[in-house]
């Protein structure tokens, strides 16, 4: 499997705050990569740097071998990277179908073709029955699904999910996780930002752990959970020390 996304020594500073400190990671074709870390670890910042929403101070982002560092968000999307947002940003005054069609219009000017594509994605996501509803009337989980559908309709090769599961109840999380694996099975690469480790572990091929802006681990899920640095990052030094002596 070829490498499609390569983040190389990326550094992002906000004034004095070092939000991302020389982070490197790779995502291969069809791979699901979990990006985890406690609150404030720099996950969303890294995400926004990749998607073009923040300018990068140092380092590079390559996508399919092309340097996409500091490209505008719309250009990044045209290259084949789609994203969702931590705080949902559906188009409220548009129907579910229109939301998804907006994504589909990236690859075609033709309204009929955009509609067919959108309906196909809605069927896949399980929102087909709600296609005529106004997006603002949906529940939070449905809004999140609309965002995923909208992103998928732009036919990306890499999908960035920013805390797609935050704010969902137990049952809803399971549904969402199921959907993520379904998307992954289509052969799409996924970079999933999440701060709840348990959710990400079972679906990820690889997990990258951030803490205080730096990468502390990049490994298979099982290996990461046993990594003392990860335990320290999540549970504090004291717990880690105790854990090690046992």
């Amino acid at each position, binding site marked *: 499997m070829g490498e499609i996304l390569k983040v190389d020594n990326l550094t992002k500073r906000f004034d004095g705050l070092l939000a991302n400190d020389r982070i490197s990671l790779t995502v291969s074709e069809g791979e699901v990569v979990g990006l985890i870390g406690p609150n404030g670890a720099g996950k969303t910042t890294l995400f926004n740097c990749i998607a073009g929403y923040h300018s990068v101070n140092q380092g590079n982002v390559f996508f399919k071998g092309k340097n996409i560092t500091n490209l505008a*968000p719309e250009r990044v999307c045209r290259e084949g990277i789609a994203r969702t947002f931590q705080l949902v940003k559906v188009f409220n005054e548009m129907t579910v179908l229109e939301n998804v*069609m907006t994504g589909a219009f990236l690859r075609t000017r033709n309204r009929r073709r955009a509609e067919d594509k959108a309906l196909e994605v809605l069927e896949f996501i399980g929102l087909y029955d709600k296609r005529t509803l106004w997006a603002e009337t949906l529940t939070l989980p449905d809004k999140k699904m609309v965002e995923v559908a*909208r992103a998928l309709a732009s036919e990306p090769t890499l999908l960035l999910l920013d805390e797609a599961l935050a704010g969902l109840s137990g049952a809803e999380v399971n549904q969402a996780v199921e959907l993520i694996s379904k998307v992954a099975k289509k052969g799409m690469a996924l970079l999933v930002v999440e701060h709840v480790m348990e959710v990400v572990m079972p679906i990820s091929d690889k997990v990258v752990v951030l803490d205080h802006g730096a990468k502390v681990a990049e490994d298979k899920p099982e290996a990461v959970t046993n990594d003392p640095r990860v335990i320290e990052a999540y549970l504090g030094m004291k717990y880690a020390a105790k854990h090690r002596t046992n």
Partner: protein
Amino acid sequence: MTRQWKYILGGAALLLTVLFPAVFNSPGALHLMILIYLYALLGMGWNILGGLTGQVSLGHAVYFGIGAYVTSMLLVTFGISPWLGMIPGVAVSVIISLIVGYPCFRLDKHYFVIATLCVGEIIHIIFLNWEAVGGAIGIWLPIMDTSFSNFQFHKTKVPYYYIILSFLLIVIFLTAWIQRSRLGFYFRAIREDQDAARSLGINAAFYKMVAMGISAAITSIAGTFYAQYLLFIDPPSVFALILSVQMCLLAVLGGKSSLWGPIIGAFILIPLSEYSREFLGGSGQGIDLMVYGALIMAIAAFQPRGLIGLLQPRKGK
């Protein structure tokens, strides 16, 4: 409403508007209808940018004035037919709109509104002091023979009626087409959430300029018509802030971002302001604005989507 009913209603409305001068041929009735169509046209032009794309401009009188002035100056100095003069009028308006848009679109929503308002007032003042184009005195257009190519009709207002009606119909079809096409989807996406729109590959800066250009072009054509209809223009009549505010008001009152909203708005506000002026005379100046204000407050409180919301309830769709 089913599709069939829509066609029947649309056809009936079209028939009524086309036959109107045959039944009501008094100059007063025709004048009122011409004003309504003119303002509906302005509201629809404003709506492409303000309603559909969500970029509220309070400086649209600029393009109205430019359209009026460019064609009038070309006619007065070179004797160029207003029909031809309309094209450079549109070109100048679009260019100015893009010059205004380029820096202003970088501003946050509220600042964009303030910036457009300032540009509108600056251009108003420039024209007031620009002697070469008549300054504060304005321009009287030469009276020419009645003919279509001269854009002048002296015996009756009926030709003006059909000209402005045709302009309006063209813009209705244009807007309907935009709304259904990719362009309309992109405009709405930008209005709803610019960050999300960009995440879907939409070049928000570019499409806002497109909306600005289309909007300015429509407004400019309305300006040309206005100058030919009244045969006199001066800065307060075509560049006044109140004109920019009215364009916004009709669209918001009728239902911004909807196709028919500005037309409904014009049909309510224009008779209101004309008749309140007529009944109350000089002492009644400003009364129409007070009624506008009250209407806007009522709409904001009870039907934020505008009057169109009463006709097209959203629930159950």
